[in-house]
């Protein structure tokens, strides 16, 4: 009796905390437009609700939970988890409403280059010309939406993670940082968020990772951090290359220079449209190469990819899902946003090199996959392989190729979390990731078998699932530029099918009579996945089918963004350099 009562008391307390937080958050969200409405009536839906809200929220939740005495923290797990999920769902509602035009009534398919929606600029560090500048276009919106979709799904899938009072707020913080990267229109702000994303991921790997988590977390951090130092160098160079403007000095900017991407893009645009090379071709090439180096490490492309398998294998399920689903897209997004927009002439010059790197990533990545015996390692290398397709789309220098590359980012962003969710359940229930150490998963864990089959098929590019559209678009564009070279990526599709089918044959299938279980299981009996994992997987599967069958939902804005890169009347930069080819 007393136990029931105390349980009830605990539950009531939990419930009160959650309810209070949710009500507060809702009231805050509803009230904030009144404070931030500016003259045009355009509300900043990004700064407060999508960046400050999750980051501050996660800090508050962490503080709340860590206030509990030792041993009692797990009691806070449920309210903290529920509040984290509630926050991320709020953000999802806003981003979805933005997408469908329920708020802001935005036409995403009609945006010129260097034009942004929900474009808001606030003074930040005025003396250095740094501002807080957010905005969305046909490139960043899909990434934002992807982030807001994947984070709640990740939270649901890893609901039962241990120490979840600490785990889920980190994911929420991750969401704020990632959104910051995708919406930033100021180079300083972009860099700050770019590095900020490393912190929650570092802790996710360090705390919940596998046996070698310490090594993997350090490697992940130092490797990508070193690469982003090159980015910082490029940003600072770009900053000091500007001529100080009297206008800015009058506004109190001591250096007379700005970090604004919008300003820089319009300079690049003006130069390109009047037939000049912005900053001169050698400087453009140098900056282009520095930025590309920084971004393809994050992408990652061969030969800068080795941090990825280590990080994935050691990372917990949530870490892998977010890392593969969203963080890798930061690299591709950065490529589009900075070097490809600012330095069109350098892009045209290094087009073939990008193609070669992309091709090596694709073909070599697939070959390495075939040689793996660790399920998660194989899936990690398949990410390298698929990100090669993004580079091929860029190298095609065709609007269709660009759009295909962006669609690939999105599609891979919803497929790879499912791959890793399945790997995570596998590890969780069978305590191993070795391919071939057990047989007949379909018999012992039918749901897991179904999801594995589905995710694997989606990743190998089955039609009517999301990845196929991207592959067709990129390869059509690729043929237009490189002709018969397309045979290499096409044959890689066979290798891709080979490693996926091979791994399925040795896990899902077989096991006639006696089911073979791995030694690591000990005396455990095999289980199927938990209801939470089930829900997460179903949601991802639905998304994959949705965007595979009805790609136009999101294709339109990507295609029009890509067109804007090329069209003269849409402010295109690549018209002159690519159109003449």
């Amino acid at each position: 009796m007393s136990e029931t009562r105390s349980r009830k008391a605990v539950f009531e307390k939990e419930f009160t905390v959650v309810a209070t937080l949710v009500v507060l958050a809702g009231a805050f969200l509803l009230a904030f437009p009144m404070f931030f409405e500016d003259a045009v009536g355009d509300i900043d839906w990004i700064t407060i609700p999508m960046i400050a809200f999750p980051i501050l929220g996660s800090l508050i939740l962490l503080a709340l939970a860590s206030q509990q005495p030792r041993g009692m923290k797990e009691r806070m797990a449920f309210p903290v988890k529920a509040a984290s999920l509630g926050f991320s769902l709020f953000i999802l509602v806003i981003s979805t409403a933005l997408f469908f035009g329920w708020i802001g009534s935005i036409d995403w398919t009609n945006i010129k280059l260097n034009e942004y929606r929900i474009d808001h600029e606030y003074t930040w560090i005025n003396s250095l010309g740094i501002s807080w500048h957010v905005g969305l276009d046909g490139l960043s919106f899909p990434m934002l939406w992807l982030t807001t979709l994947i984070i709640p799904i990740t939270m649901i899938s890893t609901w039962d993670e241990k120490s979840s009072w600490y785990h889920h707020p980190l994911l929420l913080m991750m969401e704020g940082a990632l959104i910051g990267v995708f919406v930033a229109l100021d180079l300083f702000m972009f860099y700050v968020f770019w590095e900020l994303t490393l912190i929650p991921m570092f802790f996710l790997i360090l705390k919940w990772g596998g046996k070698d988590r310490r090594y993997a977390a350090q490697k992940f951090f130092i490797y990508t951090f070193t690469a982003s130092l090159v980015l910082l160098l490029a940003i600072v160079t770009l900053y000091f290359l500007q001529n100080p403007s009297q206008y800015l000095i009058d506004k109190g900017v001591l250096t007379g220079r700005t970090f604004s991407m919008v300003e820089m893009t319009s300079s690049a645009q003006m130069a390109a449209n009047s037939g000049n090379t912005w900053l001169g071709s050698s400087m453009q090439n140098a900056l282009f190469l520095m930025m590309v180096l920084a971004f393809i490490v994050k992408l990652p492309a061969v030969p800068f990819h080795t941090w990825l398998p280590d990080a994935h294998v050691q990372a917990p399920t949530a870490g892998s899902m977010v890392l593969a689903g969203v963080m890798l897209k930061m690299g591709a997004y950065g490529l589009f946003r900075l070097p490809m927009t600012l330095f069109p002439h350098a892009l045209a010059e290094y087009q073939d090199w990008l193609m070669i790197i992309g091709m090596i990533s694709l073909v070599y990545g697939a070959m390495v996959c075939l040689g793996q015996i660790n399920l998660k390692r194989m899936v990690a290398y398949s990410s390298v392989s698929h990100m090669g397709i993004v580079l091929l789309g860029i190298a095609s220098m065709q609007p269709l190729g660009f759009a295909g590359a962006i669609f690939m980012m999105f599609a891979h962003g919803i497929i790879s979390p499912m791959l890793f969710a399945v790997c995570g359940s596998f590890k969780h229930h069978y305590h191993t990731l070795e391919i071939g150490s057990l047989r007949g998963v379909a018999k012992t864990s039918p749901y897991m078998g179904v999801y594995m089959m589905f995710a694997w098929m989606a990743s190998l590019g089955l039609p009517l699932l999301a990845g196929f559209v991207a592959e067709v678009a990129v390869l059509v564009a690729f043929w237009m530029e490189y002709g018969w070279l397309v045979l290499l990526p096409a044959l890689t599709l066979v290798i891709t099918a080979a490693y996926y089918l091979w791994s399925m044959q040795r896990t899902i299938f077989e096991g006639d009579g006696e089911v073979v279980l791995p030694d690591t299981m000990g005396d455990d009996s095999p289980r199927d996945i938990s209801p939470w994992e089930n829900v997460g997987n179903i949601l991802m599967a639905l998304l994959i089918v949705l965007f595979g069958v009805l790609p136009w939902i999101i294709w339109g804005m990507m295609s029009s963004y890509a067109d804007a890169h090329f069209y003269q009347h849409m402010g295109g930069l690549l018209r002159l350099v690519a159109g003449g080819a």
Partner: protein
Amino acid sequence: MDVSELAILIPVLPIVAMPLILLLGRLFNGNEKWKGLWKEGGTIAVAVLAIVFVLSMWLIVGHVAAFTEGSGDDFVSDVGDWVTYSLFTENGDMKVQDFGFGLQLDHISVMLLFVASFLCLLIGIFSLGYMNTDPVNENRNHRFYAEFILFCAGMFGMVLADSFLWLFIFWEIMGLCSYLLIGFYYERPSAAYAAKKAFLTTRVGDVFLFVGLLIMHAVFGSWDFAVVFDASNIGAADAGLIKAMLLLMFIGAVGKSAQFPLHVWLPDAMEGPTPVSALIHAATMVNAGLYLVARMYPFFSAPAVAGEFTDVALLIAMIGGITACMAAAIAFVQDDIKKVLAYSTMSQLAYIFTGLGAALWFVNKGYTELAAFAFGASLFHLFNHAMAKGMLFMASGSVIHEMHHAHHELAHHGDDHDDHDDHGEDHFDCQDMTNMGGLASKMPITAIAMAAGSASIIGIPLIGGFWSKEGIVGSTWKAVLQDGGGLFIIPALLVLITAGMTGFYMSRMWFMTFAGKPKTPVAAGVHEQTPFIPIPLVALTGMTLAAILFAGLGFAGWIGDNANHLSLGHLPSHLMHEIMHAFLAVGSDGHSDPYLFMITWITIGLSMLVGPFYAMALHGGSLAKGEKAHWSISWLVSLSGKIRRKYNFDNSAWSDSGISNALKRRLYFDEWYDNLMLKLVVPFALAAAWFDKRIIDGAIKGIESGSQEASKGIRQLTTGSARDYIMMAALGTLALFLLIWGLI
């Protein structure tokens, strides 16, 4: 209501039914009502297929009626845009294009739509009997029906698609379902292996098809049939690129239709449940490759490219001829009843490829009339083969099912007395024909159906495939006579020989199964008792025997040249004409062609007399005493017994020979491909993995440990002694001064 509004339901209804069946199956698994009335989802599947069949018939009848009235046009229905995109063309212009989804129905797809919807429905009914009465499948039949109905959606979608990309999309969906259904008994290692093999082998072909489609887009800027088939567009394009495109697409067709050298997956695919073999690996999916090649017809017929692609057409015919002969030879030595049928399928599909190759060659050479005839004959053979082979597989399924049943009863019975006996029977193979025999009296419906199906495949005069096979053989031989067609002598000879070989192996299968005395106690205890199974057998026997009517209606001619051909009124005269044509080689001018007359009778002689004769001599036999077969086949059984007694000979020299062994091991293709995989691809992949771990990551680790070493070295300098620090400061200052002086 307009039919065109409902046409979209044909692929959509099954797609919707698929998750429904899966979900209900998950919810009600094990429920008695779900197993009984709902047949674990089978009822839903069959109901959906019945609706689809009615819709299809509505479309088909409307289409045919419009044509016979002379007002007909191909039915096209645009459903909507899928994606819009922009591309630079070669001259630097930006072009905005859209790619939409639509349905198209013309004379080719009408025929295939009928085949698909009719067979899907019948095999669905068959499955109700076959799958649901086998305890092995209990509680997982919903998975079977869900995958089955998704496959049907893929087939309908492919037939109705109005562009090559949609054709490819549904083509891949079918490939997926084929993979899933071959691996239905996932716990069997052989099934898992076969599923993987099927998917990968067809994937190799599919990738080439995909590259072909990329070229098509580059050449025509579209995949829509309406655009790419436009003769002026074809004329404006680079003929070399089109040729490359056609070759690549043909590789795709070779993979899907299991032709040499991508044929290895089909025999293994028999690991799937028998309804799957009947539907996917005999009657519908394997026809997709043929459909694709048939769809290429306009590329060959455009006047601007006349004479350009004859070598492609010849290649198609060659591949067909080689596969036909090879598969028939391998079928000689197979003892597994389903394997015989699988090789027979390969061989018959190869016939159609040969015929299509001849048709494409003719039309590219400008012989329009000959081309139309060969084309019509090929597609008519596709029709006949699908009906007959679907039925044969179902009949074999019926045999296997009853054998299983009998074996189970026997084993159970023996269990009470003797454990050892039960153990010995564990390895009993219900598909092995050497365990059967004498089933003609025990399974009359199955035996008659199988006899009719075999006759159709062999090409016994007046039955089923006879009408079309004669046309194909005749067409290839006609091509030999034409200017530049000398090389056609190879496929022509091959298909002629294969006609005789077909006669042998199909008869061998029938006599081994149904004639003679039961070779095992299991075979002696077999009864025809499973519900639902006879329905499709009877329906398809009727269909096979009715081929004569189709021939009389001018079915082949109608498909071949799309003119007003089908008419009931002219049936008697048309029939007379067809018979004169088939037996006396009377052409449209009313004269008999002696060359064709000779070929015709050689074919009939080989397939009807020589082949079956040897089969009877080796494998015939009368039934056991007291057993009586149905009158329609009893004469055949007793004839075989007489021939066997009189002409039986010892063929152990042949069956122990190297050739026979090679055939038994499928001419070593599987070994070669496995070796290629194991000795080349796998080591290469392992080497790549090693390279990645040791060299690329090794370099990173080298930098890491190098920097650690360096920092250790630098750490040595912090000695803590003031003397060292003063020394260092002094040296530093000196260096600084030197630097400044040097700069100045």
